[in-house]
């Protein structure tokens, strides 16, 4: 037993840089690992080899406030948020192994960005009554997200309701909520006109190529595409999404439950950024509308 314990301690001190860590260890090391999704504009992506996007900018601000350097831990998304939290925040991926150093710790993010902040999700239980997400702390909401349609004004005058997609083709990201909505709502009447793409940017490119007349995705993604296109021909729709389940949700962050204190310190920094209007400015720089998360909207009222 003693040998085992000793080994564990050794491993922890060795590879301290790789795994998620205590607040004090982050400060002492001079580096914080910010987890962000790969190739996911406008939230986190690379431009000429440099990490950019609103989540990256916020990560920089956190690092600055701590007086440390930021390093990006790029996340390849798995099938669900549970998978991403397990692979990147508290356990690590099962393929993250070093043949030459089998005791090396897994690569984890100290803080993961763009994690939905939803009490119902955080306290979800399995059929045995156990908390599903008990290994992580979900905290620090910093943005409210919604669904949005953009359309080609040379094909459609306006999108007053989603009923127009009974007659006009629309592009969505495959296996997303807009995909579920457009292929199943209203008895599937929009199904035939729903075209599937691997990403929102591919769907938007298909609209520019004349393949579809509209796209549906997350508001920030759609705002970003409109800004990138820089062509008044592509416009934002004002329709609602009747019968659609989750139309808005808040985005926050996650840390491993062992490093709750780190989460608290990050929370303080991000709250200051929100209240000072700094985050809104970051969004504006990417041509994105910014909406306060529910927590701050309620306080304001």
């Amino acid at each position, binding site marked *: 037993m003693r040998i085992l314990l000793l080994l564990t301690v050794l491993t922890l001190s060795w590879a301290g840089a790789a795994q998620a860590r205590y607040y004090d260890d982050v400060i002492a090391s001079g580096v914080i690992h910010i987890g962000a*999704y790969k190739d*996911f504009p406008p*939230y986190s992506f690379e431009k000429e080899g440099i990490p950019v996007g609103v989540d990256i900018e916020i990560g920089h601000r956190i690092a600055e406030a701590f007086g440390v350097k930021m390093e990006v831990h*790029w996340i*390849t*998304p*798995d*099938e*669900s*948020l549970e998978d*991403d939290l397990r692979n990147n925040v508290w356990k690590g*991926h*099962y*393929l993250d*192994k070093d*043949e*030459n150093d*089998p005791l090396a710790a897994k690569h984890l993010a100290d803080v993961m960005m*763009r*994690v*939905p902040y*939803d009490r*119902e*999700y955080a306290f*979800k239980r*399995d*059929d*045995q009554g156990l908390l599903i997400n008990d290994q992580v702390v979900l905290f620090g909401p910093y943005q409210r*997200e919604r669904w949005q349609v953009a359309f080609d004004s040379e094909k459609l005058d306006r999108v007053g309701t989603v009923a127009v997609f009974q007659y006009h083709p629309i592009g969505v990201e*495959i*296996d*997303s*909520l807009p*995909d*579920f*909505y457009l*292929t*199943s*709502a*209203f*008895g*599937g009447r929009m*199904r*035939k*006109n*729903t*075209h*599937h793409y*691997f990403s929102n940017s591919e769907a938007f490119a298909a609209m520019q190529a004349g393949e579809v007349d509209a796209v549906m995705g*997350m508001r920030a993604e759609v705002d970003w595409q409109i800004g990138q296109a820089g062509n008044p021909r592509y416009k934002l729709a004002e329709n609602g999404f009747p*019968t*659609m*389940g*989750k139309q808005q*949700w808040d*985005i926050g962050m996650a840390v491993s439950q062992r490093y709750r204190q780190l989460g608290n310190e990050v929370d303080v920094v991000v709250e200051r950024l929100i209240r000072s209007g700094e985050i809104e400015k970051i969004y504006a720089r990417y041509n994105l509308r910014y909406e306060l998360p529910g927590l701050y909207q309620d306080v304001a009222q």
Partner: protein
Amino acid sequence: MKKFSGSFAVSALVAAMSLSGVSQANVTDKDILQDQSTVEDVVSNGLGPRGQRYSPLDKINTNTVKDMRPVWSFSFGGEKQRGQESQPMVKDGVMYVTASYSRVFAVDTKTGDELWEYNARLPDGIMPCCDVINRGVALYDDLVIFGTLDAKLVALDAKTGKVKWKKTVADYKEGYSITAAPMIVNGKVITGVSGGEFGIVGKAEAYDAKTGKILWSRPTVEGHMGYIWKDGKKIENGISGGKPGQTWPGDLWKSGGAATWLGGTYDPDTNSVFIGTGNPAPWNSHMRPGDNLFSSSRLAIDPDTGKIKWHFQTTPHDGWDYDGVNELIAFDYKDGGKTVKAAATADRNGFMYVLNRTNGDFIRGFPFIDEINWAKGLDKNGRPIYNDEMRPGNPSASEDGKKGSSVHAVPAFLGGKNWMPMAYSQDTGLFYVPSNEWGMDIWNEPTAYKKGAAYLGAGFTIKPLSEDHIGVLRAMDPKTGKEVWRYQNFSPLWGGVLATAGNLVFIGTPEGYLKGFDAKTGEVKYQFNTGSGIVGSPITWEQDGEQFISVVSGWGGAVPLWGGEVAKRIKHLNQGGSIWTFKLPKS
């Protein structure tokens, strides 16, 4: 990552040449076609191209098996211990076996000494859809050929383990992977692909086994163009199913799923490759009204051209994830003096089907598990008579943000039988089917997120149907649909079966036992605990007049990935990774 080159390769070569003075001959098409009757080697997945997993060896039999004992065990080593689903191959005193994480080992069959080892270098950040298991190699000429988690075919030199050729079958970044053993048909290596819910399209492909040059490609979803290569030129070879949009709405055929993740079998009689296809995408059936061809089907493909000769769809409009990938095994039986060229398969959906293998016609079908509730039965063409109440819910019913209504469907999506291959005994005329009795509660889960976005997940829990067992090894009569005997196992069965002329049937259990049964009565004649759960398929061969049996041990695969009630039955099982080899003591 470990590399075996330079001095390693030389010592491996010396070791290979020095073993028991056996000369190494290359594997030919004839060797593969006759594999079932040539007992001194195992050069095909399934002990013969038809995949019957039957051996005419009988030295180890119901009388002698009690004396059988292990002669060596070989550890795969390392930290990489997740699910060993491989079937070893044996040729000229060398065993070729794969292990999890795309590894291949060559081992001396007499001593258990390692001759060489190959570790595929996997790309950084790879997210394989379907666990990290591998089901085995193909042997051809002087090559050992296998598929990797990043969807490549790799051919190794059988003597040294060095790469002779490597081909990308599909792009792992789009969600493709390979876990099945490739098969060899007349000099061609034929493989399928695995894939998750990212909008992949299944396909079967043939490559020249010696050079790795592609020969044909056949998509398994209606509407996609197939191709054939002639003199290095890619030529259109007909759209699968004729044209798009017949059994799919909108553009969903473009991302229709139907992954060919378990590979196939080959019937020399009709010159057909039988390959099964997975569930259609998207997962929720309400989004894609129609039969969704060729998902959840068995296809008979011409190995020379890649054309689909016929198909049989076991679960049209699949809404339960009842992949139709399970092996279709060719066999003949007598019906009033007339020989019937049949083939049988035991589907994930709980029904066993006997088909006419010359044209795919349905002969008969019957349940091989005690309870099925998603269908009331099969009609005269073998099409299921749905029980509509048991179809998982329409997403639009959950669009108010509430949890959809829960359905208790039997069997669970892991199936009445999953990937683990059954065996057919030519002596008893029975199929030995490794099955599981479990159901699932399934509902639409609106409290779900994916990549920073709200999502509609599928919530489910798998539940055993009985206190004392999930797994059932059954002896099934394909002529009557009657169960002749059964063995019940506490945890789910997840390994393949072997039948022998010694009136024995072998299977490994997650509890770690290699078990031997009387093929006629089901009486347990032998058991030995290998120290970790068995999810691989046993083989047998003869060397220097002695009969050997080998099986890979190492708990894992899909079962431990799911929680709920089933997790309680298996959580005490330990991981591992080793080969065990048995024989009778010398008299």
